[in-house]
């Protein structure tokens, strides 16, 4: 009987948590979901990056090929992504401070940074292909196009997510918690930024 009462209390507690979107550990469910997704992404990108680093260790000619990539565009893109991370975290802060007008502007700037990154990347790829370096030009180029291409797909996805978030929070009928939406979109964007931070020395600078 006593055990049954405890179970009922447990169910009520779970129901009240789900009603406010909280997991049983007191963290918003959407945020837990995003972090679980990101931990999977860490394994995918991390696995690819350490494979690349190990290959580099056993391939002394690596620097000769990395000298052929465009370090200038790679460096500019780093500043673009870091600035995008800065603007999306400011958007999150503005939403928390109920300053939605500034939040819209910062999310818009983040979308622009994503599009700018993709445009620079496209110019970079075009230049490299023009010089005869394609996916099948050797192991370095296979890693280069594979990893930077997979990363660019993530930048595109992040840009689409940010656009959807901007549309959702700017509609008259607001979603349940705009702060959570912006925070989760920002988490994905920061992750994409962190991946690029490691791709820069791997393919452009060393």
């Amino acid at each position, binding site marked *: 009987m006593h055990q049954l009462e405890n179970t009922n209390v447990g169910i009520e507690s779970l129901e009240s948590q789900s009603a406010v979107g909280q997991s049983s550990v007191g963290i918003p469910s959407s945020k837990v979901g995003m972090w679980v997704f990101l931990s999977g992404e860490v394994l995918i990108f991390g696995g690819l990056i350490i494979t690349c680093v190990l290959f580099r260790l056993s391939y002394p000619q690596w620097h000769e090929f990395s000298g052929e990539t465009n370090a200038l565009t790679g460096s500019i893109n780093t500043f673009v992504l870091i600035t995008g991370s800065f603007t999306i975290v400011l958007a999150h*802060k503005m939403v928390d401070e109920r300053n939605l007008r500034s939040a819209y502007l910062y999310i818009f700037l983040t979308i622009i940074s994503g599009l700018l990154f993709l445009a620079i990347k496209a110019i970079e790829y075009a230049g490299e292909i023009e010089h005869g370096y394609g996916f099948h030009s050797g192991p370095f180029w296979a890693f280069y196009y594979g990893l930077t291409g997979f990363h660019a797909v993530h930048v595109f996805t992040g840009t689409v997510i940010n656009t959807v978030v901007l549309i959702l929070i700017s509609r008259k009928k607001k979603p349940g918690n705009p702060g959570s939406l912006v925070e989760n979109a920002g988490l994905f964007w920061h992750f994409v930024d962190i991946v690029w931070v490691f791709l*820069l020395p791997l393919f452009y600078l060393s």
Partner: protein
Amino acid sequence: MANKHLTHPNYLLVWIVLCGLTTLSILTSVILNPRHHIEFRYLAAFILFALAGIKAVLIALNFMHLRFEKILIVCAVLVPLTLLIIAFFGFMPDAIVTLKR
């Protein structure tokens, strides 16, 4: 509600430091260019990846608010990272053997 108790650090300062570290990476690559200073190629790679690691930690702690998160969220990041480190050092002997050939 989700962000009621969230503290926002000085994001401008973090952004300036990140830009500074990126500039330092570019300068390191120019000064210790492996094409001209082949003897420094491993030193340059070490410095560049160390700077990348510092930048990643800064982004994770400040922009992703990991320094304010509960231990469960921190574990969601640390567990896959630990597995990757084990995998890296597990496979490294094979890479070194290939290098010596």
